[in-house]
């Protein structure tokens, strides 16, 4: 969202004006960020690499969910949609390579997403939360039902391979980064086109949007499809990363975490950075809780079994704090930093 910018920044074409990078400084910052990501696997232990892969996967889901929430189509079925992507991948990964399974998983999840999103034509706002809650449980149940004969309901995914060459963790990390970059570019691009703006408008006042020629059926379906596709691809990546999937991986609570921590804490309307920050928050809290419990258990033995509960408390406190203190999310903090550096070193 291009807000008022400092003087001295002159744009000579509309294309330059709509670019994601407003100033040379932003190119430098982005370049530095990419550089850090590229050299990271050589310095960080594999344990952290896995955490980053999880961050990447969640941020893709949250990007789609962020767009959907921005159109005021509240959804809490995204964990289940990821599950659909993951299971689709697990079932077909033994026959076809990843660059086919991922789009297929995405399309599958998009179809389910649109199907359960269609009631949004008749029902609005939080009623949609109810219908998607129902969708989450129904999808979860169906996944359980399909896998009822498999011991542990666990379906194994073929390892990630290109032309028979099996990718290691580091190669997988680079591959996932590239996919994320592409997905992030697409969602940010949608945000700046008339389509993205129409989705925002549709969310805030659907009848006013209708009079601008927004076909609600079409646009709501588009929003659900995009968001479902993102969730499906993320699920597919998840499936390759873990090597096996079970329905328990995609519980109802995860949907709420995606919406609450991922979108709201990250920053609603900030499709890329808000989503990434939200995703970082989800994973960081999980990791910190795990380590905290490991450290504290010798002193407080009762804590041992309750990492799960501690994590929920942290999430709850973070959501509450963000809602009260910074309702626009962490992305707004990032924006403030950016604003500060816009005029650096002569900021006021």
């Amino acid at each position: 969202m291009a807000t008022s910018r400092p003087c001295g920044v002159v744009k000579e074409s509309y294309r330059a004006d709509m670019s994601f990078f407003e100033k040379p400084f932003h190119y430098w910052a982005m370049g530095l960020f990419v550089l850090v990501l590229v050299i990271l696997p050589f310095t960080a232990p594999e344990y952290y690499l896995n955490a980053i892969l999880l961050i990447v996967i969640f941020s893709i889901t949250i990007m789609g969910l962020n767009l959907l929430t921005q159109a005021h189509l509240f959804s809490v079925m995204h964990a289940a949609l990821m599950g659909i992507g993951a299971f689709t991948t697990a079932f077909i990964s033994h026959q076809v390579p990843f660059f086919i399974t991922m789009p297929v998983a995405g399309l599958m999840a998009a179809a389910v997403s649109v199907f359960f999103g269609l009631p949004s034509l008749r029902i609005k706002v939080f009623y949609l939360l109810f219908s998607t809650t129902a969708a989450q449980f129904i999808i979860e149940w169906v996944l359980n039902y399909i896998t009822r004969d498999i011991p542990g309901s666990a379906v194994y995914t073929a390892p990630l391979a290109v032309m028979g060459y099996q990718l290691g963790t580091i190669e997988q990390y680079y591959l996932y980064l590239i996919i994320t970059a592409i997905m992030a570019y697409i969602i940010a691009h949608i945000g700046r086109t008339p389509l993205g703006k129409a989705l925002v408008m549709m969310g805030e006042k659907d009848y006013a949007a209708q009079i601008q020629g927004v076909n609600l059926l079409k646009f709501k379906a588009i929003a659900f499809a995009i968001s479902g596709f993102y969730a499906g691809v993320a699920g597919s990546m998840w499936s390759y990363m873990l090597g096996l999937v079970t329905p328990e991986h995609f519980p109802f609570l995860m949907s709420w975490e995606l919406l609450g921590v991922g979108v709201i804490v990250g920053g609603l309307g900030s499709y890329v950075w808000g989503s990434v920050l939200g995703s970082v928050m989800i994973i960081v809290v999980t990791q910190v809780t795990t380590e905290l419990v490991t450290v504290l258990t010798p002193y407080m033995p009762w804590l041992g079994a309750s990492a799960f509960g501690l994590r929920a408390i942290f999430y709850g406190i973070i959501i509450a704090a963000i809602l009260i203190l910074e309702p626009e999310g962490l992305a707004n903090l990032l924006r403030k930093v950016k604003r500060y550096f816009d005029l650096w070193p002569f900021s006021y």
Partner: protein
Amino acid sequence: MKNVLEVRDVHLSFGGLVALNGVNLQLKEGEILALVGPNGSGKTSLLNCICGFYKPQKGSIIYRGEDITRTPPHVRAEKGIGRVFQTPYIFHGTVVDNIMVGYITQQKGLAKLVTMKSAIEARKKAEELIEFVELEIYRNSPAHGLPMGIRKRIELARVLMWNPDILLLDEPTSGLSIDEKRDMARYILELNEVHGKSILLVEHDLSLVHDIAHRAVVMDAGVEIAEGTPEEVVNNPEVIKAYLGE
């Protein structure tokens, strides 16, 4: 002159409440038709019927010889009926963002909405309209907190984005200062005279109606009670009765 829009014997009621009770109205090519009447007389309901939010129980709405009584709102917009609301609906985003939304109406097919080319084209067109409604300095500021006068202009620009054939303006000057009213009247006249749009104007300010409208229709309690030039209408005893009571 040809009728662009014709409302024939439209009846609309919500439960027991009768909002429109057999309204007839013709909007001629290239005219400014003012629709006046006391609050609750059904003016806004009529506009909602014309742009498709309400489906009248009886009667029909003809747009350029085509019955559009049952068409959904977005299709009517594609056909060229533009509507400006009484309270502008501005979403969170910059002024440019708000105006760019209007671009989607004419575009057939999804591909046209997501290419960079279309975004740039939309941006360019938005820029022209920003110039038209004189909002250059607000271009990149968040639209949500701007004052009423600016928001009304944003909404007008958004509708003009897709070059509608007829404009339904719902109290375009309510809540504006004298200066802003003058500006708005200027835009309306320019749209009518330079761009040849037919305009249906709902307005309470009779002096404004007197100044810019070619014809006026007075409504009261869901029926139209008088029709003619603004002078005739203002002096019509029925109208005076409706406004001032017995």
